[in-house]
């Protein structure tokens, strides 16, 4: 057991990050009331602060910067008002308002906020240019308003910054995948969606290519009902069993 007296000896280990979590908490309690230790920590911390300079300088890959800023942007979007609900609310950062069909009420908008945090009003501009995307958007909105199950499908380490959700309408109708942040696949490669039930072989669902950086609705030809997992892999064209790296994967909500 540490007494206050021997807590003084922890100063060096504290500034070097060499205390266990328990030891660190105990020392910080002591530190709060010990001026001598506070002064020594401040003094030695200045030495520790220059230790990173002893490392040989190595440049990280340029992709790291892109991933970091994509993650920051995603966090900003999650915290911003998500969609303009009927009656019209100003979209964040001065962008155009997105008027969902009247059928989408406040409850549906709330579900969107909770379930599809990344699906924001950026979609407006894309939708204006793409009527089929708008049609899918309306279908998804209607499905959610009617009680569809929404499952978040997070990115794996192969695709940091990406995110997705599967929207499963009621009555076992075909599902939708909403995806954002996937980079274009390599030449002659596509993203393939899989549904998985327990330990059975993954079932190929469809293939798609990302349509820019904005959220994208991918209509799926089958229902996700009865499946427990959804995943997306990179494949050299449509294949019957996954071979490429998995970029998105997550459990499906019943």
């Amino acid at each position, binding site marked *: 057991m540490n007494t206050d007296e021997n807590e003084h000896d922890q100063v060096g280990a504290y500034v070097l*990050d060499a205390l266990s979590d328990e030891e660190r908490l105990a020392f910080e309690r002591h530190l709060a009331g010990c001026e001598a230790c506070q002064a020594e920590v401040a003094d030695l911390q200045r030495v520790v602060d220059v230790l990173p300079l002893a490392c040989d300088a190595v440049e990280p890959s340029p992709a790291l910067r892109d991933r970091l800023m994509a993650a920051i942007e995603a966090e900003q979007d999650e915290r911003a008002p998500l969609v303009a609900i009927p009656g019209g609310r100003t979209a964040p950062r001065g962008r155009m308002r997105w008027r969902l069909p009247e059928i989408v009420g406040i409850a549906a908008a709330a579900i969107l906020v909770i379930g599809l945090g990344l699906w924001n009003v950026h979609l407006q501009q894309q939708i204006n240019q793409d009527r089929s995307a708008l049609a899918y958007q309306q279908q998804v909105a209607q499905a959610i308003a009617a009680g569809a199950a929404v499952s978040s499908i997070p990115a794996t380490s192969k695709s940091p910054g990406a995110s997705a959700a599967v929207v499963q309408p009621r009555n076992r109708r075909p599902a939708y995948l909403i995806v954002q942040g996937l980079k274009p696949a390599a030449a002659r490669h596509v993203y393939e969606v899989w549904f998985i039930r327990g330990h059975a072989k993954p079932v190929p669902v469809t293939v798609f290519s990302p349509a820019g950086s904005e959220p994208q609705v991918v209509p799926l030809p089958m229902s996700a009902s009865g499946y427990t997992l959804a995943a997306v892999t990179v494949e050299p064209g449509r294949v019957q069993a996954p071979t490429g790296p998995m970029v998105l994967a997550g459990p499906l909500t019943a």
Partner: protein
Amino acid sequence: MVSDEQSDNDLIAAIQRRDARALEKLYDRHRVLAYSLALRLLGSPGDAEDVVQEAFLNVWRAAHTFRADRSSGRSWVLSVVHHRAIDKLRNRQSRPQSVALEEGMNRADSMDVWQDVAARLTGQMVRGALDALPREQRETIELAYFRGYTQSQIAEHLDIPLGTVKGRMRIALQKLKLLLEGSQVELSTE
């Protein structure tokens, strides 16, 4: 507005106001040191990049906790990187060997030339000061700071009493301070 003249503290203040460009600028300024530190600790470029990304996300989320009166912006960022790297190291089943820096890694080549020269000179002085420590003190710093050992693990690894480890770390840092002050390495905060 974010400009080249802004200090780290200015950038962190802007990050507190949710200015993503300030975070980007802070990252650009310290990415090489942050990544080099993470790589030295973790040995794996992939893990090092994960840690740097997590650390800057932490900076973004917790900018309001930064205390300019207690440390410089650079020190704060690097301490976040170090904490994250240590957490990752301690969660590993086994430790990697020390990083061999010659093994196919790209040395930084896009830093501003003067900044690069200054950093390299300072780095040489810090390495020189570390080399000037008695071997057992240098070894203790290496195991603790660059390899993520706790003081108890160091005692076990070197088969010496815990009290000796504590004493060596303190004395080593005090001696380093004197050596660095003698070599004109800037120890004060920005």
